[in-house]
């Protein structure tokens, strides 16, 4: 079995690096896409400089059923800030009220490269440490996204 503790992604977005950078670093924009539809972002702070704070709180809405009202804060610190090119931060994410048990300690690195009017995005997330119940926190957040995908799926199926 592979001993990985790192996940890596490569995507190409139909937008300029400036637009992608704005989406990643502007609180008002982050609020629009960071969480799934049925999750709100009541708090988001971005102090865009090395050593600056990156704080996002996700809150499960009505549609999340058993998770409703659950808050998942993430508090990080930027280690690399190269506008429109590279962003890196160390962060802890947890489920409110269960910080000890659910904390995920991680480093995320984002690289943006312009490519024929589009932007290639490389994202690496390395997990350093997890609390014993961190898996539950991930599942909770994940439940929101799954619902969102199901919704999209229903919508597409209904159209046929």
């Amino acid at each position, binding site marked *: *079995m*592979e*001993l*990985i*503790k790192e*996940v890596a*992604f490569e*995507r190409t*977005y*139909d*937008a300029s690096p400036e*637009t*992608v950078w704005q*989406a990643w670093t502007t609180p008002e*924009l982050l609020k*629009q*896409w*960071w*969480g*799934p539809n049925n999750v709100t972002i009541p708090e988001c702070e971005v102090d865009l400089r090395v050593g600056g704070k990156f704080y996002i709180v996700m809150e499960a809405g009505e549609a999340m059923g*058993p998770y409703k009202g659950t808050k998942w804060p993430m508090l990080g610190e930027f280690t690399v800030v190269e506008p429109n090119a590279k962003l890196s931060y160390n962060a802890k994410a947890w489920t409110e009220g269960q910080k000890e048990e659910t904390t*995920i300690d991680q480093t995320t690195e984002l690289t943006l490269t312009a490519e024929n009017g589009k932007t290639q*995005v490389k*994202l690496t*997330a390395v*997990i*350093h*440490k*997890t*609390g*014993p*119940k*961190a*898996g*539950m926190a*991930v*599942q909770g*957040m*994940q439940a929101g*996204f*799954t619902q*969102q*995908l199901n919704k999209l799926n229903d919508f597409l199926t209904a159209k046929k």
Partner: protein
Amino acid sequence: MVEHSDELDSVFGSLSDPTRRGILKKVSKKSMSVGEIAAHYQLTFAAIAKHLDVLHRAKLISKTRRGKEQIVSISPNTLAVASNYLEEYKQLWENRLDSLDRHLQVTNKKGEK
């Protein structure tokens, strides 16, 4: 909802060390005695024992006694739990990146108007 076991607690911490990852890789192929493992490294026996302790606490390995020797074996369940967890974490990011894509598409359309 699937309850994740406490085993996950120290798994990722244990795997952060290259020597420990190496040891785990070796014992994942076959069970080995502590002496056999130590022979692969230019480290003191005590240092190897310490690494094994960390892996043992994370329940990544099990130790059994065979005569005078201690035999180290991998505990596949713990790795399975960790790998499962990582899969979900990966999915979370996949979905978030999809969400960013939808967001950018909407932003683009607004820009064209």
